[in-house]
């Protein structure tokens, strides 16, 4: 079963762009990264998923339930951390666990205390006196304390120090391996790469790529750098259709290989190559490729 299914989901803000025809499926038990630059539509998508915003078109289903009509039932099983977390200034961690627990009808104290200890957060401090990182930790505790089936985290590691970030990543991995689904948006490509098994990239309100990291890498092609022996000769050469050159810098070409390596080697043979590098793209390269490709196509 899929934890999240978005079908032709659109949401506009009058003349301002929101999201357009978003189709996405997040399998249960996966660690899903939702990538995109600022203003791409990540937060709008999350807000529609959580029933804060009504879709203009299409549908969003979480845990098999409609995101707008059955939002109450969904939220009983969802933990959410907003991107720009703001909490009541009079609230301290203990009050927050007590009040949120009363709303949810369960005692969040023991689990909250355990999480606070793991994240090294003093639950007695009022949020008005907390640093951004401390508030973020409290937000994470409140999102995790009721042991949700689905976690939706908007930029969860921002404001956290590297050690706590690593701790959080470990915890998220453990949650996913125990069958929980983690959906999180991020700018940090390295983080998504080390953590996620699946990703989707959103640009200008549309999904431009989605799948496992391996699928995206395969679709993107290997990164290729060719250094020719003679710069003059390089300018006279035309690349084959399966080699997309993104940068020509004197005698050096940089680009991506979108066909079989054998054909590429065959094309190179007999040509004056001084040096050749073929590497598998990392997520950053995949991301750059999709965004630059889109920009060029726009």
């Amino acid at each position, binding site marked *: 079963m899929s934890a999240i299914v978005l079908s032709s989901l659109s949401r506009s803000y009058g003349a301002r762009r929101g999201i357009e025809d978003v189709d996405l499926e997040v399998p249960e038990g996966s660690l899903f990264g939702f990538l995109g630059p600022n203003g791409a539509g990540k937060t709008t998508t999350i*807000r529609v998923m959580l029933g804060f915003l009504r879709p203009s078109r299409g549908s969003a289903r979480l845990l098999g339930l409609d995101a707008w009509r059955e*939002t109450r039932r969904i*939220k009983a099983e969802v933990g959410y951390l907003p991107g720009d977390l703001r909490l009541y200034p009079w609230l301290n961690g203990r009050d927050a666990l007590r009040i949120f627990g009363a709303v949810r009808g369960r005692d969040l104290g023991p689990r909250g205390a355990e999480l606070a200890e793991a994240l090294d957060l003093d639950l007695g401090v009022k949020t008005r006196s907390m640093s951004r990182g401390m508030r973020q930790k409290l937000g994470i505790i409140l999102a995790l304390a009721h042991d949700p089936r689905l976690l939706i985290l908007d930029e969860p590691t921002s404001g956290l120090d590297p050690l706590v970030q690593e701790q959080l990543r470990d915890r998220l991995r453990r949650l996913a391996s125990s069958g929980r689904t983690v959906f999180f948006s991020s700018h940090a490509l390295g983080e998504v790469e080390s953590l996620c098994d699946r990703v989707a990239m959103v640009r200008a309100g549309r999904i431009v790529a989605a799948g496992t990291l391996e699928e995206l890498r395969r679709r993107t092609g290997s990164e290729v750098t060719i250094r020719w022996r003679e710069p003059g000769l390089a300018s006279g050469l035309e690349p084959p259709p399966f080699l997309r050159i993104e940068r020509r810098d004197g005698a050096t070409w940089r680009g991506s290989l979108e066909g079989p390596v054998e054909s590429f080697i065959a094309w190179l043979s007999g040509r004056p190559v001084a040096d050749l590098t073929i590497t598998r793209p990392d997520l950053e390269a995949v991301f750059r490729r999709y965004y630059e490709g889109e920009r060029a196509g726009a």
Partner: protein
Amino acid sequence: MNRGLLQKAFRELWPATALFGIVIGLVEGVLAYVLPTFQEQLAAGWAQLRFAQTLIRAMVGTDTAGALGREMFFAIAWVHPVVVALTWAHAIVGATRVPAGEVDRGTMDVLLALPVSRWELFLSETAAWAGSGLAVLAFAWAGNLAGGLALPAGVRPDPSRVAIALVNLLFLYLAVGGIASLISCLSDRRGKAMAAVFVLVLASFLLNYLAQFWEPARRIRHLSLLTYHRPLLALRDGVWPILDLAVLGSLAAASWIAGGIVFARRDLSTV
């Protein structure tokens, strides 16, 4: 209603409620003692001032027919601008917290992520501000009774009649709160919502005053909330102002339901 949401609302409302309650209790106590005690001097002074009589008539909500009797001085304690301003201010502060206040301070996302329906949230928040309003008016009643106890036994107001005046004020509070709640549901900025309600109640106050001597205002006087707040009738005649309560109650209920419908259907998130 949700217990956790009530706890949260109570935690947010009690400081303002305690402050407003203490102040309104003190004001009521002073007015309840001072006005009847200095009734003769005040009546003699006001008899010379036409505008003062007009203002008093506007405040107490009925024609005094030149008789500035004891009941009217008791009534003034319930319509004094300080008392009315405090009551309205508390209603506006309490009823604009959700959703405008939550959106404005950026906590709406956290609140909406909880497993409660929007109607449940709206109902819990309404119960909190209405309950806190009741607490403020209880302070006012206590202050009024305490002030009355300081008067000689024969001139104290009848507590059962004071209770009628108090219920009338409570319905006025609920009507202002209902309107404030509706405007809050239509807004993302609490400051703007509060200002809009303030303008409405101020217009209501002015209309009620102008209607005493200006025919065009008299014709639309029924639009003023204060038209339905007439404590003199209760204190002088001991009559329940059923029609006034019905109008204020209907207005409160209609604005509350309209607010709830808007709240349940609109897009909501931190801006």
